[in-house]
């Protein structure tokens, strides 16, 4: 994949990037993938070369549902990235995917960072950002062929307690 530009930032994904290239190639096809261990079968949220649980170096891309829950969040009131200034304040969320939640150990999960967007692909209203709310993946397609997975609130009711800090 060549060099892309996204919100004034240069995105460089090299042809030999064995961690992230396949992830973004799948995103362009509007598929969300994680790596699956060919030996123990466990998925991993960070697409590294080895399995954190059995050390196997064998893996394949594995498509996931793109559904999950907000595990933590931050509202960026002040950004140091010039191209994000028109977005501020904007949310960044840590999403725990439904697959393999709490596995193999309690507290483990497949967790991805993304912006929480509304139906117009603009930052979601801060009052709607809360730990525990259900989300689903959406794809932000750039004109130059770069697609960035993002998340939006889903219609599903929360499965557990919902919390946000009242500032």
């Amino acid at each position, binding site marked *: 994949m060549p060099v892309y530009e996204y919100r004034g*930032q240069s*995105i460089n994904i090299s042809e030999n990037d064995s961690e992230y290239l396949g992830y973004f190639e799948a995103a362009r096809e509007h598929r969300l993938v994680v790596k699956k261990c060919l030996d123990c079968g466990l998925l*991993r949220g*960070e697409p590294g070369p080895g399995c954190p649980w059995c050390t196997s170096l064998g893996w394949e891309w594995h498509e996931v549902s793109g559904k999950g829950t907000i595990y933590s*969040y931050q*509202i960026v009131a002040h950004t*140091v990235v010039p191209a994000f200034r028109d977005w501020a304040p904007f949310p960044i969320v840590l999403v725990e995917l439904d697959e393999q939640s709490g596995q193999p150990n309690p507290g483990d999960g497949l*967790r991805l960072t993304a912006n929480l967007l509304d139906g117009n692909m603009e930052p979601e209203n801060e009052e709607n950002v809360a730990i525990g709310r259900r989300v689903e993946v959406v794809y932000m397609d750039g004109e130059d062929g770069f697609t960035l997975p993002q998340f939006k609130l889903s219609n599903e009711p929360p499965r557990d307690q919902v919390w*946000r800090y009242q500032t």
Partner: protein
Amino acid sequence: MAGKLSGKYCIVGIGETEYSRGSGRTTRAMGAEAIRNAMNDAGLKPEDVDGMMSYHGGDSTPSTAIQYDLGLRPNFYMDCSGGGSSTEALVGLAVGAIEGGMCDTVAIFRSMNGYSQIRIGGTGVRAASGITGPELFRRPYGLISAVQTFAFTFTRHMMEYGVTSEQLAHIKVAHSNHASNNPKALMKQRVTVEDVMNSRWIIRPCAHLLDCCLETDNATCIIVTSAERAKDLKQKPIFILGVQGRGTKPGGDFHYQHGPISRVAGHYVGPRVFDVAGVKHDDVDVTGCYDAFTYTTLLQFEDYGWCEKGEGKDYVTSGIINLGGKRPNNTSGGHLCEGYTHGMNMVIENVRQLRGTIDDYCPDWKEGKHTYDYSEGKCRQVKDAEISMNMGWGTPAVGSAMIMRR
């Protein structure tokens, strides 16, 4: 039980430049000054210092440049990539290098134009660089600065344990009170909880502007040698009882894949450092708990076991961490008020505390004469401080700790 090298090595020299926002010179020039000041403090000549170590984030000057500037010829040097929590770990490595016969005396330095050149907060050079590798999962979403990198930990901790912004603000208030008695501090003004709460938001819900440390231009240096060698030197040696780190959480850079994400590396580093130093929490008179943000201090107090998990909010609001309290923290004002140095100034401060020669506004501080009047513009020496502990923070997943004795 104490480790076999406990108390056999010591810190004999400390040096700093001015803490400023606009040094007007290079990291090389500042590094040379800090090392020279530490050599003078120790009473060491160029031929006496045969080891150099430093850490950097692509923003400093190599040992092999500064050796020329000070006429040193190291038998051992190592410049490594590192940030917060490197200071303590490098002291441990210096002990190892000397014990292994690689050299006799090591100057450890950190030099950074952290305000006027490469800013840790990401403004400028770092935000303009291309995005590649693991950054592809963060920076396209506008996540680049240190506080953003840590914020998922902070927010989750607020939910799990009910921490409020007001409670966090108490840390800034305590450190600002300390800084008001530090002529070197970049921000000497005492602030209130309301001042912190009224400062603008950087990241909701975990960081107002005044919850964040001060990007600073400075260099700092610590000189380590053996207890035997220290006998001939100028200062009262401060003995290194134990060092641990940089230790990590499961997952390292990708620690958010593993829970609990509200736990930090001190959970792993803490028991080991107390063990190797052979001391207990109650033996410690003064702490240097890394304050890149108010929240880093609170989390480390919990995970190093100064209180139960979830009770950090009570610990930091109880008065324990204030000068005059049971165990004052960051008596220089720390990164929040003295200046951001990637941790070395907090070790330097504790060396001075244990020497009894804190450089405050007491007229005869150089002779170790203090008033112990902690009101504004007065004293910041802890009375009879004998044992100190530093807790360095790299990320939620990375930390180091060191315990020293006078």
